[in-house]
């Protein structure tokens, strides 16, 4: 409808964000991990290499996407809560996203 107006975040807001280890947050979650069936994958690793922003490293709410020491994006599908953010949030739509096989993946206890 109208133009996007993205002002940069004020530096003091940026600085006010606490560092959180997402692994601590997901520790109480119950996953039924489907060992041999990753349901998330990088479609073309070259696209990630060319992506400088790599927002998936930040916006994924459970930290599925991380960099290895060589700068490659690793996909820790085991921790996925199946929200779908990466499916639509990747600027290059470079993330392959399927539903885990029935019975696998996250099982919320509270929701």
């Amino acid at each position: 409808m109208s133009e996007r107006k993205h002002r940069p975040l004020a530096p003091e807001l940026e600085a006010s964000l606490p560092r959180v280890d997402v692994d601590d947050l997901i520790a109480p979650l119950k996953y039924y991990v489907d060992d041999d069936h990753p349901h998330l994958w990088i479609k073309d690793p070259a696209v990630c290499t060319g992506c400088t922003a790599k927002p998936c490293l930040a916006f994924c709410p459970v930290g599925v996407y991380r960099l290895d020491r060589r700068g490659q994006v690793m996909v820790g599908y085991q921790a996925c809560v199946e929200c779908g953010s990466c499916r639509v949030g990747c600027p290059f739509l470079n993330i392959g996203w399927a539903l885990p096989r029935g019975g696998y993946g996250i099982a919320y206890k509270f929701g």
Partner: protein
Amino acid sequence: MHAVVAIKQVPDTTNVRIDPDTGTLIREGVPAIVNPYDVHALEMAVRLKERFGGQVTVLTMGPPKAAEALIECVEQGADRAILLSDRKFGGADTLATSYVLAGAIEAIRAEGPVDLLLFGKQAIDGDTAQVGPGVATRLGVPLITYAIEIEAFDPLARTAIVHRRTELGVEVLETALPALLTVEKEIAAIARAPLPNLVRAARYRPEVWDAAQPVAFDAAKLGIKGSPTVVGRAFTPAAKAPGEQIEVAALGLPAVIERALTRLEAAGVLAAGPPSAGGPGGGP
């Protein structure tokens, strides 16, 4: 071929939390699952059924909620499910539990021959590994614990060859049937259940047996009354005192290594044990 599989519904201990104040299990939000070893026992039974025909009966002793676990077993391929549920069974230790399971299996055998009894090697909540051997003893059938493979199975000749894992290696045993096996996970990899099984399970209601019907159990041998052991005290393991921390930068590498090996040795975690006592289970 008729295989009977005994299962247990357990809290998922990978997710368990203990209330530090009361020392009791926080059941809130802890999912209940079929004891993982039992799932493999069931899978083995289903494979045998697929090969030889026949049926798989699954049974459990537990509260009414344990019916969920039985329904999961029907999904996985069990034909018949029996829930042994009665307040009188409550609080049973392994001796009282094996009494009830053995009685129920006797009743199933009275209806028709049973070729194989399958149990998980242990339940992950109690880790006792006692119920399977107890039931075998009560029924007077051969027992093979820690089974990892059924090499041969002949329901007509009523024999089987079973591999069993011990600290010494793998024992290959020939047994008469019926026999009772308690199994490791590698006995059978879990296959994905076909949809018709799930449809059947969604409609299935397990049979419920109580302390009086169809088996009239001896009340003195049930539940708390029939259990020689009681829990005197339950407590959370003492929180570890913060460990020793040594810095290579401060002490130098040789001193750090020396200290580390001394500590490991003192803790008895280095593999090399005393040669004279290095018996069968000596090495890891």
